[in-house]
């Protein structure tokens, strides 16, 4: 378990003041990686992204180089940068927009060049009004410098980049819903296959990556695939933007090598839990990922392999930390409200299941639930998982399923006492028919 985080020097959020200004960025060696990349044959670039081991930072952790190699032959092709960032617990892309937008633009240009793409969309959720302005200003500056929209230096290739504002829906972050949204349609996720790399935006081959994923591309060009692959955990290498939120003394986004110990992140980086309280639970990566009990995090590191063994997943590496006084049922109830509110309502199980689950949680919060409601929740989860068009339904079911599996006693505490009037009444009514 190699971390070496004490000596790690951030490359994405490196703290340089005013880095969002193109002069500062260029003085720091900005856009040099682009020039370097333009000298490399395209196939070699794709190959080195594959070799770097970079995995998508948008939630699914799919190999970026692999995704790129699936791109269809048809043209035109499109690049989309997914900056919808709406999952509770995730706020890392915002930092990139704010503090290093040019690195993102540089990443877009290199990616577009490597995949012969002439049009790129950066999709940013509408609530990020301030950060949209920063990115648009940065785009205008790099346009003035002859980068965006112009023939790239030393090549005959030009790339246009547009910022597209979302209207505020979590589902717009799902890649195919996002494409419908750009096309001006209702953001319903599309059936897959066909996958976006073959039939994507406007029916054309489209590569869609998370903001953080794209920002890593210039770094791979700068360091070389081999050196990049040495950063952090070998199965999931590279710098990673960890989000710490919840019951933590120093919440925020921290750039560190991948594969950090969860405990180090909480206690060494995040300064521990306020008032010296004990840890109760951690959701490692955005609210959809399975929750871990405090006694499950020993030796667990933030990379795909280790988290899988622990029974969860990295998601967006936005960790939600909960102290000993947290009421898990209440916390999850808040999440069920989110998923109910955000389900696009296309698939039957998700449309109906998310709402039903929320109503049952409300019953728990009123202390009116019965033990059978716990099993009912699990049964509803089973009816939702893996049966829908997109992964939102799974994301809605997992917090419920895993919090019940791992904190069942908390749910039982919210049930009404057997002797209280009306207990079991409804159950008899249903089964007696």
């Amino acid at each position, binding site marked *: 378990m190699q971390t070496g985080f004490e000596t790690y020097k951030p490359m994405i959020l490196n703290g340089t003041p005013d880095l969002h200004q193109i002069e500062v960025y260029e003085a720091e060696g900005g856009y040099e990686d682009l020039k370097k990349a333009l000298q490399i044959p395209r196939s070699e670039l794709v190959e080195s992204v594959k070799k770097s081991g970079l995995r998508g930072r948008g939630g699914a952790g799919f190999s970026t180089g692999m995704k790129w190699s699936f791109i269809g032959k048809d043209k035109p092709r499109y690049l989309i940068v997914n900056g919808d960032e709406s999952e509770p617990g995730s706020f890392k892309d915002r930092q990139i927009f704010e503090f290093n937008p040019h690195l993102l633009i540089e990443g877009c240009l290199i990616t577009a060049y490597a995949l012969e793409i002439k049009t790129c969309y950066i999709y940013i959720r509408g609530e990020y009004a301030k950060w949209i302005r920063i990115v648009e200003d940065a785009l205008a500056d790099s346009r003035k410098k002859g980068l965006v929209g112009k023939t790239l230096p030393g090549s005959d290739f030009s790339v246009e980049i547009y910022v597209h504002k979302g209207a505020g*829906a979590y589902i717009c972050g799902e890649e195919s819903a996002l494409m419908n949204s750009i096309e001006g349609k209702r953001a319903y996720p599309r059936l897959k296959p066909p996958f976006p790399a073959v039939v994507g935006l406007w029916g054309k081959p489209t590569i869609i990556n998370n903001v953080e994923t794209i920002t890593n591309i210039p770094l791979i060009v700068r360091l070389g695939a081999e050196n990049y692959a040495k950063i952090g955990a070998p199965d999931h290498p590279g710098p990673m933007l960890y989000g710490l939120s919840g019951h933590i003394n120093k919440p925020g986004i921290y750039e560190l090598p991948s594969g950090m110990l969860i405990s180090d992140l909480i206690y060494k980086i995040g300064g521990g839990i306020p008032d010296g309280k004990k840890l109760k639970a951690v959701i490692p990566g955005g609210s959809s990922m399975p929750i871990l009990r405090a006694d499950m995090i020993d030796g667990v590191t933030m990379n795909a392999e280790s988290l899988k063994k622990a029974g969860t997943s990295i998601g967006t590496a936005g960790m939600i930390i909960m102290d000993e006084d947290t009421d898990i049922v209440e916390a999850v109830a808040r999440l069920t409200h989110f998923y*109910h509110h955000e*389900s696009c309502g*296309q698939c039957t*199980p998700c449309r109906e299941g998310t709402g039903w689950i929320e109503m049952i949680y409300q019953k728990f919060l009123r202390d009116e639930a019965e033990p059978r409601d716990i099993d009912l929740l699990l049964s509803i989860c089973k*009816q939702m998982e*893996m049966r829908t068009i997109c992964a939102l339904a799974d994301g809605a079911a997992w917090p419920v399923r895993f919090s019940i599996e791992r904190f069942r006693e908390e749910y039982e505490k919210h049930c009404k006492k057997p002797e209280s009037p009306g207990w079991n009444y409804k159950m008899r009514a249903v089964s007696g028919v």
Partner: protein
Amino acid sequence: MPTIYIDGKPCQAELGQTIIEVADGINNGGKQIVDIPRFCYHPTLSIAGNCRMCLVEMGLPKKKKDGGFETDEHGRPLTQWMPKLTTACSTEICDGMHVRTHHTSESVAEAQKGVLEFILINHPLDCPICDQAGECPLQEITYTYGPEGSRFEFEKVHKPKRMAWGSKITFDAERCINCTRCVRFYDEYTQTHELEIVQRGWNNYPALAPSANLDQNPYAMNVIDLCPVGALTSADHRFKARVWEMSATDTISVQDARCSSIRLWVRDNRVMRITPRENPLVNGYYIADDDRLNYQWINDNRLDGPSLKVNQEQQTASWPEAIEAAAKSIKSYPPDNVFVLASARASLETNFMAKSLANDVIQTSHIGYVPHAKGTDDELLIRADKTPNAFGCNLLGIDPVSQEQLSQDVKSGKIKCVIIVEDDPHFCLSLDALSKLAALIVMAYTKSESTDNAKVVLPAATFAEQIGAYINFEGVMQLTRPAKALKYQNRELMKDMALSRLDKHATQFDAWSKDQHKIDAKPGWEILIELAKCLGKTYPYQTAREIFQTISEQYNALNGMDYKSIGKFGKKLQPAQEEQTLL
């Protein structure tokens, strides 16, 4: 040809087809191979995959690294089952694919129960007052595949009810299951884009765009049949009859030259509604709203028994009296002064008898029909020619004649007596020509001012009361079928009549049937034969079928066809032979 295995049963399939298409029997002559329940899938619409009702287990042959297939110890190929259930509507087949439906897979059966439980938690379950009850896929699928009860114990979501989508459609958002069929129909079939889903999650429902007007969409009402629940109901038919009270008769529409295949729904000898009938040769799955809504003329204001004009007034008469009077009138003019006006609204058999009456009995060469054209042909179904059988008339050698020409001939005294077969005198002749005409004999469906002018009025049966052949503008021959009874019913017709539950099971004491809805009218050909007999020529035909037999023998284009060979979709005449006869 690739083979797939559904529940272990090998089925032929073609690449590009989906599992549901194969299961529905696309390569099996349309005969279903296995039942897969569905709500959002429809063969004419794009794949939405949103209802999740058609989930199946799917497996592919296990591939080896070298590209070959892995086999078990008996050399049988091994199957790699996918961890997730997949939607049969969206999954394209490949050779050697294995599919497990609810018949062989626990998890599929359980998923179906799950989906149905979800659909029903917010469904109002107001079947007792819902028009769809009795023909509702949600009801049927729930009975067949659903769970036994519900575990939902909260108040259901409330959404808009009784919304008027224009004057033709009423929408109940609470019953809607969000299958998006209606949205896709307007996006893809009419391409008019009136609807979109609004809201999110279980508050979703389709809503009319602010500026959209479905009254201007001539196909708007097809969504009523597409809707798998009672969310979309016909404003015209709403609350008028339960499905099981009506008999359903497969027949064709006579609104225009398309002759769309339809189903006539009849209770107590009144047409209650019309719905489309699938026919790949003619109209696909849909019909125009005019085909659906225009049926009052079959029920109301009908001519009930013959009448004669006595002292400027119509007086009822018996059939023999009326026929006698008509014959006498015809005989009083030289044949060359008599015009037999056949009709592109009448059946092939009636037109054939009209032609025989003119050529063989009266021996006049004056025969023709007046075309009815309005508007233009559109790209979907609607035709400018508003008659169902112009093709048939032409085939029999009956030529079109314009109202001007006919009126001219009447006014110049060339024509003194006109026999109108199933058409409107006011449409066929100008007012001054009508007033100048010495003798008008009319066979018509409905009472009107124009029939008042006639010397003899003979009530004719409509297409809804008889069997008869019609040929649409593309040369597809189809049959109408009797859906409602006439007063003195020809027993041959009764055999062909569809029965409702009420027809079959009601006793004479269940006062649901009223004799006054039975009209005293006769099929056109029958009247013409009686007329011919009175004029001295006896035809041997007892039924339309026998007349058709004769036509079929005389005209090559029909190629020896009989009623049976026309089948439920009709039969397309061969173009080469068509020309031969027309020459």
